[in-house]
């Protein structure tokens, strides 16, 4: 069993790492399997101004354990795979997760794997969700849900898209546009379905558009300034012109978290972003975000991310 362990968020680096571990050569962003190790290839594809894509289509004589380790960088991965074992059994699935979590994928020997991985930065997704009706709900969901693991059955439509990407009917000439368009459809489809499933979960409660607007105002007020203690629920209820209990219920409905937890999540995410920008020290960050001491900041940060601020103030390399 070959073990591949990584926390890389650049697929160029990841392809190099794969090639190194599998002792194969990279040519033109493609790793070809040599006859002694298997057959097929792993291909890297960059989408214009955005996600990176890895297309895996190979059979290896030895099993491979893909182990993703936590990364300090927040990227999101959609992975579609179809594995055909020697006895003809086929397993297929769609997976979605973020790189701040661990996950594994085990491929047994002599299994034909067809896999498409799409990695997207948080920043790209922010822009992707901007100006879309479902944008805010989706963005909150993927940012705040922890652990974020979506596991879906690979249905016929995804399989069709995958087949079209793997076989490229029109030949190499149109690779760019064909791959780009199929990837766009996969991303669109995934988030549309995710949104519908989020909606279905909450469909037991109705909220009017006026109430929705007020709840959004509350959210705005809540996240306006982290250096001050958050407004009291009673105060927020006045802004929303509803009772505190109603506000609590509706807020949770719309943003999926209780008010204070939501505040804390965003505060810690802001902290992480500040630290990752390398423009602020741990002390500055704690101060800006209204922590009375560095140690209470450390404690809160550890609770949120299971690591200390000092861990990510220094770059992690694999």
């Amino acid at each position, binding site marked *: 069993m070959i073990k591949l362990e990584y926390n890389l968020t650049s697929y160029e680096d990841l392809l190099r790492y794969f090639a190194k571990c599998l002792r194969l050569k990279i040519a033109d962003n493609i790793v070809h399997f040599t006859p002694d190790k298997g057959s097929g290839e792993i291909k890297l594809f960059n989408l*214009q101004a955005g996600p990176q894509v890895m297309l895996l289509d190979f059979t290896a004589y030895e099993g491979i354990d893909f182990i993703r380790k936590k990364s300090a960088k927040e990227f999101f991965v959609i992975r579609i*795979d179809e*594995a055909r074992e020697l006895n003809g059994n086929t*397993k297929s*699935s769609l997976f979605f*997760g973020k790189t701040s*979590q*661990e*996950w*594994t*994928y*085990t*491929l*047994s020997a002599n299994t034909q794997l067809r896999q498409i991985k799409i990695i997207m930065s948080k920043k790209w997704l922010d822009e*992707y969700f901007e*100006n*879309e*009706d*479902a*944008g805010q709900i*989706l963005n909150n969901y993927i940012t705040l849900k922890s*652990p974020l*693991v*979506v*596991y*879906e*059955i690979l*249905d*016929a*439509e995804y399989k069709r898209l995958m087949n079209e990407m793997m076989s490229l009917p*029109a030949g190499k*000439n*149109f690779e*760019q*546009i*064909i791959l*780009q*368009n199929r990837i*766009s*459809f996969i*991303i*669109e489809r995934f*988030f*549309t*379905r*995710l*949104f*519908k*499933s989020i909606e*279905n979960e909450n469909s037991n409660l109705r909220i009017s558009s006026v109430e929705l607007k007020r709840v959004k105002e509350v959210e705005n007020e809540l996240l306006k300034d982290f250096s001050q203690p958050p407004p009291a629920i009673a105060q927020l209820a006045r802004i929303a012109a509803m009772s505190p209990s109603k506000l609590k219920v509706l807020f949770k409905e719309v943003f999926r978290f209780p008010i204070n937890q939501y505040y804390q999540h965003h505060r810690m995410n802001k902290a992480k972003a500040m630290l990752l920008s390398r423009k602020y020290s741990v002390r500055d960050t704690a101060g800006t975000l209204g922590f009375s001491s560095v140690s209470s900041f450390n404690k809160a940060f550890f609770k949120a991310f299971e690591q200390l601020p000092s861990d990510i103030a220094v770059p992690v390399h694999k």
Partner: protein
Amino acid sequence: MIEVNYNNSDYKSLAQMLVRSFSLQVDGDIIRLPKNIGEGFVIPYNLPEGLSVIVSDTILYDNLFFHRQATASQHYFILQFNESFTKGEEQQAVPEAHEQHVYNIRKNAVLLTSSLMDAKFFIPKGIRIRSVRIILGSDLLNNFIGREMADKFLSNYFSMLLKNRNPELIGTDYRVLMDELIREKIEHPLRMKFIHNRVMLMIEKLVTGFMAKLENNNQFIKLKDDEINRLIKVESLLVKDYSGTPPTISALSKIAAMSPTKLKRDFKAMYGLPIYEYFQKNRMIRARSLLLEGKYAVKEVGIMVGYSNLGHFAGSFRKEFGLLPSEIANEGSSNAAFATTEIEPHAWSNN
């Protein structure tokens, strides 16, 4: 006869100009035609990367010329898909201008033109026309298919167009995409992405379809314009409505004013499939897109595409797509197949 002159490089600004000059009503994004001008609606969308789209479903009460004036400053292309519907035998005296750069959109259902050239689009009165028009920058094309391929595509395409031969027709693929885009309200949680992705797919289909025909020894139709028009009419009749039985070949051959043998041969040459196979394929594609919308039950879709027997519908559907309608329907509407699990990472590794 109305003539509109413009050279806008995006459809939002063109729409604003039309609203001002014809005092049209605006309702959000939607522009509705007032009773003195016609019926229907027009919606412009501006997308990223210089893409702009306008969709419309209209009947005009007067003939109209859209005159796009050449600009030297900006290089972009205008790609349009127009589907026209006529009631019965119409043959109005259209000014069949054979001037260069004048296009009757009834004859040029799929048309690509360049901002560097003058172009006049003739829109006849009294006919329902559904259109998607796309503005795309020349950079976009170069980025996607490479400059060399883009040059090859464009020079071949425009030389065919100059010879008054239009190489593309509206077939099923385009029709499905048009149908998704030409709606008064596109109900989609990621609406702009939905539009963008379909527009890009239309561009892809045009380019790859044209180049495939070019490389396969010019598999373009070698028929007279008039014959092509009649075949287009036959095709649109054939796919207009799936809820009843399709017209017979002899009825179609009367409409096409050609013998059944010639009709069958030429139809196949133009649309790639024999008449009834084409009908069936389109019917199934329609069923699939209805199922994917997730709003209808399998049974409803079956009836909408003319099956009273659900078993027959399922059988035909599987023949076309290799799976049952229920397999598509489930993924569209229910979340049975969609689990957002709370399992700890690691616990579900794939074997």
